[in-house]
């Protein structure tokens, strides 16, 4: 353990602690990525395969073959015992414990095989229909648009409003600053789930129920955001602001021409967090939105959950689809992440 705890050792050869570190990281990759990979692979499985036990990593489907004399393709089985052992046969039908099968080479002769003595012949195939079904079934792009609109607008407003507040709290001395700070930190303590009902009534009184704005506005001011940005802005030297004041810049101009660009790393981090929160948000949109044309992807995703049953194949495909944009955004912004918090974390 102790060996992990120090920084680099500056040797050319790998020290044993380096091996430990790489081992840990490899394990981490498996643990962190594995489940999601599993999710992605599962989204290409048929509903039947999803229910299968033991679960298999890759998506399999049963081999089907068109046999002369039968209109529909017949499922292929391998016989495991008896005189036909080792052969592949096509099953015509099953009656009780007996399967009626034919050899594809000899479609005329119907043979009987005990149903225990056959094994399905399977191969790996992606059930892309899970995805195509989605687009047929409903207006995917509508939901995508709604989600995007909510995410983009909410993130912009969050960034604007929070950075303004953070600017005021980090760069001005004024009476009541401590109180405002305390209130904002205090709001960190309130779990959003707890205030759903009162919030719903308030939003209703603002006339924003069933409008995308009803989803966007209430969560736009986040205590985490203010906190994060303020910590970062504290590290911007005041002299730069003074310089701008000498340059006859108004306070607003200082805010958007100096403070905003200089806080870019922290803003990128907040942007990622906000995008993620908004994109994945479920409970509040569920309450605030009623018309289907206003639904977000997460709501649409959940409409695969009925009273008794869940359409897992579609649900997983949809989940993967909703995951893609956020991963893309993350890939774009990830290089800012460490630098961003790196500089905010200092104080």
């Amino acid at each position: 353990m102790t060996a992990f705890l120090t920084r680099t050792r500056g040797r050319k050869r790998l020290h044993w602690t380096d091996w430990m570190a790489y081992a840990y990281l490899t394990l981490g990759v498996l643990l962190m990525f594995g489940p999601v990979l599993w999710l992605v692979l599962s989204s290409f499985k048929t509903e039947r395969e999803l229910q299968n036990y033991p679960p298999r990593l890759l998506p399999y489907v049963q081999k089907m073959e068109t046999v002369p004399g039968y209109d529909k393709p017949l499922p292929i089985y391998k016989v495991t015992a008896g005189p036909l052992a080792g052969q592949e046969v096509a099953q015509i039908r099953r009656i009780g414990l007996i399967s009626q099968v034919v050899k594809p080479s000899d479609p005329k002769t119907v043979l009987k095989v005990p149903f225990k003595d056959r094994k399905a012949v399977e191969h790996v195939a992606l059930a892309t229909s899970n995805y195509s079904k989605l687009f047929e079934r409903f207006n995917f792009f509508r939901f995508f648009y709604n989600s995007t609109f909510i995410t983009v607008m909410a993130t912009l407003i969050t960034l604007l409003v929070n950075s303004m507040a953070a600017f005021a709290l980090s760069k001005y001395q004024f009476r009541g600053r401590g109180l405002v700070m305390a209130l904002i930190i205090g709001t960190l303590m309130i779990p959003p789930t707890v205030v759903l009902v009162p919030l719903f009534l308030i939003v209703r009184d603002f006339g924003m129920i069933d409008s995308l704005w009803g989803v966007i506005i209430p969560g736009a001011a986040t205590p985490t955001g203010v906190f994060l940005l303020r910590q970062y802005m504290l590290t911007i030297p005041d002299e730069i602001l003074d310089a701008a004041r000498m340059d006859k810049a108004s306070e607003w101009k200082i805010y958007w021409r100096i403070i905003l660009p200089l806080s870019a790393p922290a803003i990128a981090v907040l942007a990622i967090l906000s995008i993620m929160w908004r994109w994945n948000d479920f409970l509040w949109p569920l309450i605030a939105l009623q018309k289907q044309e206003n639904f977000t992807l997460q709501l649409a995703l959940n409409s695969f959950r009925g009273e008794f049953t869940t359409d897992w194949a579609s649900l997983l495909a949809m989940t993967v689809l909703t995951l893609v944009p956020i991963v893309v955004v993350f890939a774009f912004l990830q290089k800012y992440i460490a630098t961003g918090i790196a500089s905010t974390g200092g104080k």
Partner: protein
Amino acid sequence: MLSLITPLMQIIEWPMRALQRILGPRKLAWVFLLPNLFLFGFFTFLPVILNFFYATTGSDHILLEDRPYVGMRNFDELMNCTSYLDPNSCQIDLFWRAVHNTLWFIVLQVGFMVFFSMTTALILNRKIRARGFFRAVFFFPVLLSPVVVALVWKWILQDQGALNAVLDHFGLQTVNWMLSPTWAFAWSVFISVWFHMGFYTLILLAGLQSIPRDVYEAAAMDAASPWRVFRKITLPLLMPTMVVVLVLSLIKGVQTFDEVYAFTGGGPGSATTLVIQFIYQNGFAGAPRLFGLASAASILVAIVLIALTAVQLWITRRNANG
């Protein structure tokens, strides 16, 4: 994007300039705070205040005007226990079960969270290849939605899930993870740590990187062993960041709900029912909705949370100074 923002900012500049002239730069701070305070006021503080009204009224009506005043009855019911250590002796036993679970949960979750995110941050802070990649990998789960997280792990951990299939494959004893209260609870903690670890790792990593390099070099010249460097240099200098991590993980830990609820539904029995789930089920998902009880419970939780945070800050601050 920029071409869109610039004109907007320029337009806002006019009124702001006028305000600056009227108010002076100092009072202008309030103008900058205003939008945020407005949003907080209406959409956070006001609901919290309304919550107090709900807590002191009864019935399952949603609109406050329909609800009869019941005073402290909801609080009395919640607090009606012979012994707070034994949920069975309480009138609302499920609340106390949830409280007990939550306490255990945050102790374990905060502990493991700090331990693993610290270890990961320390390793990612070394000179290793593909550091960006590994950093992204550990952050990645943070991007997922709680439902997806729960779903994925449920598929892995259910009786006929992937983990048991693997154990089975290697001829090991399979365990019905979701049926054992201990295991289900342990896995809930694990999943919650798995889900949020990346965020704290990042904060700690940032903290580590802000420790000046030359201090480590000085320690190297001072012949300090790795363990001593960690104990005497890294840890104390990381303390401010650690406080942030501790406070945030405590607050978020108490607020844990989505992923565990979607994962176990609070089961088996009530083994993984956390306080927020209790509040949610009574106030929102239940039939009839016991808004009053739920609100009262949420106020109790908030009070405890504030107290816990204060204690935690006090302890860390004292340690930092001592």
